[in-house]
């Protein structure tokens, strides 16, 4: 419990800090002067930006954020693209500096494989159980005795008739 409390406290502090930074920022995300002349490159830049987290904001991508740091990152992404980097190289460039926290789409490496496989595995397990259940219901004979007393059955009929 103490470990949980510590972590809660740490995260709480990070949130408040992020909140303060958010308050100090101006109010518009992608600025006209950032936009690249080449529309293909610009599209790629937007796609990449939408997948990178603004690390001083609460939960926004750098594409949505109006924070100063998000702007710097957007410019950095465009700089790398103009220099001829591929999308993956740009993303690697940013993660090398800021860690995997900036990736809004977590990598499928190490423990994260659990995250990525969980939906499929859950669907298979659930689907298997559901199928077994349906099969069993289809095979079993209808139970003859009723669990209700006669008065209860009468009440139920009464309600269901309404």
């Amino acid at each position: 419990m103490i470990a949980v409390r510590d972590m809660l406290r740490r995260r709480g502090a990070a949130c408040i800090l992020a909140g303060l930074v958010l308050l100090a920022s101006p109010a518009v995300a992608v600025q006209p002067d950032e936009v690249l002349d080449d529309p293909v490159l610009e599209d790629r830049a937007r796609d990449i930006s939408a997948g990178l987290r603004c690390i001083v904001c609460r939960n926004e991508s750098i594409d949505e954020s109006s924070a100063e740091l998000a702007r710097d990152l957007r410019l950095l992404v465009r700089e790398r693209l103009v220099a001829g980097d591929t999308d993956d190289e740009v993303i690697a460039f940013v993660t090398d500096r800021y860690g995997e926290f900036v990736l809004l789409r977590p990598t499928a490496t190490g423990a994260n494989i659990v995250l990525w496989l969980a939906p499929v595995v859950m669907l298979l397990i659930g689907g298997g159980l559901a199928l077994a259940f349906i099969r069993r219901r289809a095979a079993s004979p209808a139970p003859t005795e009723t669990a209700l007393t006669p008065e209860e059955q009468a009440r139920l009929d009464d309600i269901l008739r309404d």
Partner: protein
Amino acid sequence: MIIELGHFAAILAMMVAVFQMIVPMIGAHRGNVAWMAVAEPAATTQFLLTAFAFAALTYAFVTSDFSLSLVVANSHTLKPMIYKISGVWGNHEGSLLLWVLILTLFGAMAAWFGGNLPPRLKARVLAVQASVAVAFFAFMLFTSNPFLRLAVPPFDGQDLNPLLQDPGLAFHPPFLYLGYVGLSMAFSFAVAALIEGRVDAAWGRWVRPWTLAAWVFLTVGIGLGSWWAYYELGWGGFWFWDPVENASFMPWLIAAALLHSAIVVEKREALKSWTILLAILAFGFSLIGTFIVRSGVLTSVHAFANDPERGVYILAIIVIFMGGALTLFALRAGALEAKGVFSTVSRESGLVVNNLLLAVSTFVVFIGTIWPLIAEMFFDRTLSVGPPFFDLAFTPFVFALSAVLPIAAMLPWKRARIGRALRPLVPAFVLALALGLLAWAIYNEASVIAPIGIALSVWLVAGAATDLWSRTGRNSVGHRVGRLFRLPRADWGKAVAHAGLGLTMFGVVALTGYEVEDIRVAQQGQPYQVGAYEVELIRVDENVQGPNYISTTATIALRRDGQLIEMLTPERRFYPVAGMPTTEAGIDSGFTRDVYVTLGDPQTGGGWAVRTWIKPFANWIWGGTIIMALGGLLSLSDRRYRVAAGAARAPATPKGVPAE
């Protein structure tokens, strides 16, 4: 004085809840009628006392009583009256009081309208409900008391967060709480049934209206929140997969699953233990949502109370209630005998598939939401799980659900032939395919996801219409149309809600797939083209004084084919008391598209940064949400499902009476 009375009423309400938790439960165990019967007056008293406490706090906000620390932190004399009132729940402590108010209201309603419940079950339901109330009263009074006074009251308050000073957000929390807390009724019924050791069709019928009501409230609450984000956050996003949004989305999904499985319990006496489990989990997700919002453990756009101590307390509530209920479930679920038998192709199987997809998709949202916590705690990795993950992992489930839904909705109970069920759906299928192909042909550069989404949403709407039409028999068209309006409201509710889902999906797909965006420096008097529209910055007024803010307001003309459509006035506001800037978008809302304009910074070389979007079918997202909620209400108003069904003992009426 009124504040102290309110404080006292809240403490007294907690005492009553403790009493109501213990006495009727023992009474039900021993078969003591008098002990069981005290639950009803206790529930009413608890509600009245809490209502008084809430009224007292509201009074303090309305009269700007700055001797109360909560009012100082969240209000200001200059604030418009509506936001003084919404300020009561626009903070952690006050919203907790609203939470217990709704909790006690639901308990009281179960007491008032539960006339036809067997006394023993009713006593147990009310006792379980009271135990939830005790936990939250204790949470409020011991860790987050809204009635604390200040020794030296200041002259004025610190104002409510300006983002929250908005009509959409003023009513977003109450609806969400009505939904969250409404699910506590399903929980109480589930636990009471487990203690009794019996679940039958009647139980399914009693639990369904509560779940349906909770689901309708959640639908409206989530819709309001999403609509607010759309017009207030400045770039027209409507869903962020933010932890706080997910916190409300998970109970919504599980409640939807519960609604459907309770039908199987009611009609066919099958899926009993699964339905009980869903009822427990639905409330469990409500509690997890509360934890996420109030502990600040997950970084979010709109977490509003970041206090670790509170987080630990809510975690304890979750452990006690979920642990207790699930243990009880493990002990008793085996005793719940399933009766209904059905073949592999049947409505029952269709609803099992519905539950499978909804439950697994809830799990996807859940694991994505808490994964950053797990990764940090156990693997020492600080990482994020954002929209790209959820889009990829969640969308297939929505698509699968909408592909199966119209077919499953038309399968008969017990035993069905797939061919026979599919035949009436052929026109709907052809229409969906044609419109999907059309969308693909027009915008062939967009991904195939959007055309598939369009086809599926058309399939949902057309399927719902087919479902309704097929219920009118085999007579002449005129006869069938007449019959259509005499169908039970539950049938209409089902079709309307399913169609609403299709409309929302259409809006989401169209907006995400076919949005047009423009970013530029706009010079005054120089019009430019965005899509089919002409945009011109007419002027910018700086330092416009609002009631409690200062605004920079642009006037922008929106024209099409030379005709003026609308003068848009996007703003940038600054709230001096809170020291916070906000943006107000200029939006021209339409049936087929929104034009959405925001104002940015003045540029050094003259002109202003202006962003313009054309958002196709944006309003359909919330229109569909309202229609979904309307479907729920229609179903709720069906006289067979009224909360008080059977209580009035109305004489039996023949089926097919016009819906009054």
